[in-house]
């Protein structure tokens, strides 16, 4: 999206990526950022509480938690209940990282507590370990599954579980370029920005 925006407007967009909670800490420590997009609402509301946001944040995309396994699904995982099998090597994100908190909410709602082998610091490493065959199943976002194409198989968790997470985006109070930042956020929320998100597997708010 940054590339597309740069092409259209000529405004340089510098992306700093990472786990939402790590980025929150960086912003609170004074990192120079104009816009912040978070993988869940609670990280954004913490920033709102600390009064570092310029305006109210808005939801720009929705993502879902899915299970990913190797192609062919060797362990025959069909639903979240299958994760109760203690012999499975299950990977999830750490608590405090949005996908980790989301996974725990889903476990609680399903009444299943899998034996997690590793709480990874970000969702990419969960995905990488499933791809490498070191984990039997990982809990990642639907978009991660789509981005990995044929190298991984994503298993839906079904509509009954609270698998959705909303991604808010907001302009930061202390960042420079308030006008440009607001324009960028507006563009992300516009039909054009939303189309790019849908193309990558996100759902619309």
């Amino acid at each position: 999206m940054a590339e597309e925006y740069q092409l259209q407007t000529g405004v340089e967009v510098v992306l700093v990526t990472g786990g939402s909670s790590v980025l929150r800490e960086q912003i609170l420590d004074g990192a120079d950022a104009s816009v912040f997009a978070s993988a869940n609402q609670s990280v954004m509301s913490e920033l709102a509480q600390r009064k570092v946001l310029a305006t109210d944040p808005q939801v720009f995309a929705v993502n879902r938690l899915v299970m990913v396994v190797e192609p062919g699904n060797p362990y025959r995982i069909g639903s979240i209940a299958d994760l109760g099998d203690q012999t499975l090597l299950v990977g999830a994100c750490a608590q405090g990282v949005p996908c980790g908190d989301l996974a725990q909410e889903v476990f609680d709602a399903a009444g299943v507590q899998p034996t997690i082998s590793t709480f990874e610091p970000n969702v990419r490493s969960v995905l990488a370990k499933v791809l490498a065959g070191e984990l039997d199943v990982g809990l990642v976002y639907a978009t991660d599954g789509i981005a990995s194409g044929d190298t991984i198989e994503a298993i839906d968790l079904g509509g009954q579980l609270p698998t959705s997470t909303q991604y808010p985006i907001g302009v930061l109070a202390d960042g420079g370029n308030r006008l440009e930042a607001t324009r960028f956020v507006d563009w992300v929320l516009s039909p054009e920005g939303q189309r790019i998100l849908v193309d990558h597997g996100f759902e619309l708010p």
Partner: protein
Amino acid sequence: MRVSQPASDRSARRAGRHRRHATGRPPLVLGALATVGAAFLLVPFVGLAAETPWSDLATLIGSPEVVDALRLSLTTSIASALISGLLGVPLAWVLSRADFRGKVLLRATATLPMVLPPVVGGAALLFALGRRGLLGQPIYNQTGWSLPFSTTGVVIASTFVAMPFVVITVEGALSAIDPRYEAAAASLGAGPFTVFRRVALPMIGPSLRAGLILAWARALGEFGATVTFAGNLPGRTQTMPLAVAVALDQDRDTAVALSVLMVLVSFSVLVILRRHWWPAR
């Protein structure tokens, strides 16, 4: 059969230990740069102390996650140091004494973990010893053992990054021994292993101790290779550095308490053992 060092060597060494360099005001440039260097190293610790919730510290440190992380860190780092010694000393001996093709490559490879980013080391270990790894897969298929996500995996990852410290220190010391001692022992009938055990090993004692302490310190601080190879699970693989990283995302106070604990533990050990690892003491 014991070979003792000649009296001249012993007194020369004693004199060297007590020799004092001329003290006085340092040259301005050196003094200024030294002050900047000292400040650069000290200021982060001052920042940490300023951020520490001193009144809550005792409660935070007593929590089960912290105790688990501390226990894991201490046991795995000590195990890594010992294994580094067990394997590193013979490796250093081979590099110092033996002559063979590919020695240059072996020396470079033995030093490589010091230069590589630890995460790369962790990834490489995964490719070799993971469930789908080069060696790991046959082992897994035969025995069902899987090294990642286990405490053994933590020890392996930290030994990988710590061993070079032993190899380098000991190789230097072995190469610096006057070969006449070992020749004398051999001429008196000692076999090669006896020569090593009773002549070389005692003589490299100080360097070996220094190497082991440095290896321990490196293993204690290891993060990238551990989290990549062994994963992160409280009680089994979550050492203190991993616990700090996770706590930074969740609970700033716990992260700070863990950091202070690590600083205190490391600092105490380094000070107590200063005679063994700080050179030229």
